């Protein structure tokens, strides 16, 4: 469903992505691993067009590289950025409502459903989202993106800054999303979670994909782990 | 060929250009006539336009440019601030650069002090000053027995206060029975809505309003009055200045009066023709009649002196008289203030020559003779040796 071919990306003069290739199937959960600063976030950003991509990105067979981001989103790609970007002046509920792309066609997910799932959000449903704690913001962004009924959702560091209990909760949410038939591309640092929920893992190094396989394969491949993940 | 340059330092661009451009065009139009009749002592008169954006400091820069360009005569009219700067600068320049004297011919800055306590040998004023205009205006009002209550409304700055003060003093002297039922000041060019003032005038029961307002301040004031059905006439200094007629339309008819040396229906066929010609050629009205007077006197002085040197011309111009379409005018030697008859006119519809391409124009209703306009001066002129 998503095919990335020879993707390059730059920040000013620095060449960050150096020919990234990978593909994802329908309903798959894929984790994108790698050390800090190898360019995982940049990969998802260039898929969304936030960083100008060079190379080919196809979604459901259609070339989306270079499209404005709203059109990409309209094609069914959801994105949860790593710095959360909640809308601080809107209320929690309004934040969720803005996730809806088309008000006339109700989607799979409902506002109430998320409020049930995260009592913290329910408590603050009508206060401005700017006052939420770091963790609450994270819950809100994932929920907000889901409101738009994406077919593939890319989540950048979903468990960053979360309490251990909540990390578990987010893990469950991700599994639930997967069960609902949404494909997931997970950008993660914490090996354990990624290994638990994903079908396949990709490891990045030097701006390229250096390993591709199942979690089990990665677990066994000590060389790769040593070289590309641990320090 | 050698020319005599007269530099106009006035706003030629920006929001005030509407005041400077007509003067520029008028000067150029009249210069053509003068050049066709032999020019200034045989030389062609050339009008140089210099844009000062009505800013005194910028005017000084432009003055310096003019001087470097060999200009010995400058003229200006818009803004007493600029006039004040020019008088000072010309005075100092002439003092510091003997042999390169510059004359300043003022065609519209009416602050009385310029020909009284601040009078300067190098400054000649071709417009009646504010007090003279008020003298003429009050003479007209004094002759109108129906006026018992007068309302004063003026802009809140030195000129507006001068107008108000002169009106109060002169009315008191000429018609002690007239009651001043209001004396309002409003900030310069800040009021968008004059209806509250008009309400006030209305409830004061005034028979007449006197105002020195200019620009939008007079247009909006009279417009508000018309909309409110206020019938009192407005006796003004600048009721016919550019744009007023267009904006007021029938709202100004029989309502707005102006005291000036100009009015829209010249009896002199020669002038009537010239006025039409000028509109055709430049798109501007003949509003600044005094510019024609100024150039004519300039020419006469040059011819009399037999020279185009500024010092000679200044000497010749002192006390000079000139026959104009309105009768004889005289440049008083004591203070370099022109002495001239004035006219009260009122806006009317269906005029033979309409101002600004409309059918409206100012129709002469009274002539105030030179003797009734003139005022003594406190000037103690310091003349060069």
């Amino acid at each position, binding site marked *: 469903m998503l095919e990335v071919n020879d993707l390059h990306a730059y920040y000013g003069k620095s060449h960050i992505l150096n020919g990234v290739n990978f593909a994802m199937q329908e309903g798959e959960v894929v984790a994108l691993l790698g*050390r*800090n*600063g190898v360019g995982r976030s940049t990969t998802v950003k260039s898929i969304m067009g936030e960083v100008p991509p060079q190379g080919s990105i196809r979604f459901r067979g259609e070339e989306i590289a270079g499209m404005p981001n709203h059109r990409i989103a309209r094609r069914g790609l959801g994105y949860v950025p790593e710095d959360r970007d909640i809308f601080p002046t809107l209320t929690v509920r309004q934040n969720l409502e803005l996730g809806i792309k088309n008000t006339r066609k109700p989607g799979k997910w409902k506002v109430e459903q998320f409020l049930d799932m995260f009592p*913290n959000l329910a*408590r603050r449903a009508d*206060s401005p989202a700017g*006052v*939420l*704690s*770091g*963790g*609450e913001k*994270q819950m809100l962004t994932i929920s907000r993106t889901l409101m738009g009924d994406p077919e593939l959702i890319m989540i950048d*560091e979903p468990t*960053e*800054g*979360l*309490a*251990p*209990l*909540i990390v*578990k909760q987010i893990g469950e949410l991700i599994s639930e999303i997967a069960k609902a038939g949404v494909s997931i591309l997970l950008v993660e*640092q914490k090996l354990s979670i990624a290994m638990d929920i994903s079908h396949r893992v990709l490891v990045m190094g030097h701006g390229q994909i250096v390993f591709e396989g199942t979690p089990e394969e990665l677990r066994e491949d000590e060389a790769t782990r040593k070289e590309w993940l*641990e*320090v | 060929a050698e020319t005599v340059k007269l530099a106009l330092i006035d706003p030629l661009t920006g929001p005030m250009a509407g005041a400077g451009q007509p003067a520029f065009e008028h000067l150029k139009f009249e210069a053509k006539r003068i050049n066709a009749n032999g020019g200034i002592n045989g030389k062609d008169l050339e009008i140089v336009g210099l844009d000062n954006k009505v800013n005194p400091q910028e005017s000084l820069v432009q003055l310096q440019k003019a001087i470097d360009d060999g200009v010995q005569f400058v003229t200006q009219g818009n803004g007493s601030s600029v006039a004040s700067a020019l008088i000072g600068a010309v005075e100092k320049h002439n003092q510091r650069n003997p042999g390169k004297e510059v004359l300043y011919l003022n065609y519209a800055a009416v602050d009385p002090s310029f020909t009284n306590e601040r009078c300067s040998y190098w400054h000649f004023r071709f417009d009646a000053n504010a007090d003279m205009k008020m003298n003429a205006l009050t003479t007209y009002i004094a002759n109108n027995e129906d006026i018992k209550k007068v309302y004063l409304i003026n802009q809140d700055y030195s000129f507006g206060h001068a107008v108000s003060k002169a009106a109060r003093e002169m009315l008191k002297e000429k018609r002690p029975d007239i009651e001043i039922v209001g004396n309002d000041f409003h900030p310069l060019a800040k009021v968008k809505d004059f209806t509250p003032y008009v309400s006030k005038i209305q409830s004061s029961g005034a028979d007449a309003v006197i105002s020195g307002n200019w620009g939008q301040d007079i247009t909006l004031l009279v417009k508000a009055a018309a909309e409110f059905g206020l019938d009192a006439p407005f006796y003004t200094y600048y009721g016919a200045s550019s744009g007023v007629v267009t904006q007021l339309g029938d709202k100004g008819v029989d309502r707005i009066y102006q005291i000036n040396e100009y009015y829209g229906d010249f009896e002199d066929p020669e002038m009537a023709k010239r006025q039409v010609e000028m509109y055709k050629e430049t798109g501007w009205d003949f509003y600044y009649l005094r510019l024609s007077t100024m150039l004519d006197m300039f020419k006469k002085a040059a011819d009399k002196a037999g020279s185009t040197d500024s010092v000679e011309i200044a000497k010749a111009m002192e006390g000079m008289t000139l026959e104009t379409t309105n009768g004889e005018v005289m440049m008083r030697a004591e203070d370099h203030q022109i002495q001239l008859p004035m006219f009260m006119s009122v806006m009317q519809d269906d005029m033979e020559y309409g101002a600004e391409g409309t059918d409206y124009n100012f129709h002469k209703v009274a002539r105030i003779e030179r003797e009734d306009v003139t005022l003594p001066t406190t000037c103690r002129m310091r003349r060069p040796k």
Partner: protein
Amino acid sequence: MSALSIKGLTKNFGPAEVICGVDLDVAENEVHAVIGPNGAGKSTFFNLLSGAFPPSSGEIYLKGERIDGLSPEKIQQRGLSRSFQVSNVFGNLSVFENIRCACFKQSGAGYVFWRPAGKVRAANQRADEVLEMIGLQALRDVPAGALPYASQRALEIGMTIAGGADVVLLDEPTAGMSNTETTQAINLIRQVAQGRTLMIVEHDMGVVFELADRISVLVYGKIIATGTPEEIRNDPRVKEAYLGEEAA
């Protein structure tokens, strides 16, 4: 005397009570960690201590002096300084300048405009020391906004201690760091802790257990437990509220 002593501290935002009657004593030279679930009020707690918000009620004593209700700069001048959960530096100024700015006040050159900054010896020296301590000498002239994330976090800590405070609050100093970076950060924090009282908020239990002398657990505005890492690790309430079953 305890470095920080907090009595009955509460904070309401409108009807919501975010901090509900917290009592806490932090001993001098102690490293004290505050942990708790998201939204428990840890950042708010720090905001109250550092004067960003006034408390709704309660008292805060810094080395015996009452500081609640004072403005942040007054509190800072009395020796309490804090870092932020999200990096909060002067983006267009160089790394060195960021730190030096934090030093002027202490060097007695706070509002000086008659002497070049380069001539304010004390501030320059201090800034160089701090720069060395946080290991950013090489990036001295780089605008802070262009720094890599981890370096920015280090700078954040550097600015916090540069002003000479001896009570330092760090809000999630290792958030978003990789393992190596975290190790470096731990070392830095250890160094910082020398001769200072430290309070940190952290979700990374590895960091917490490694650094903290004592830990307080904040849950929905209340401290449910305070104790040594060992005590906390074994506290059933903490497990339930925060750590979950397979505690770190």
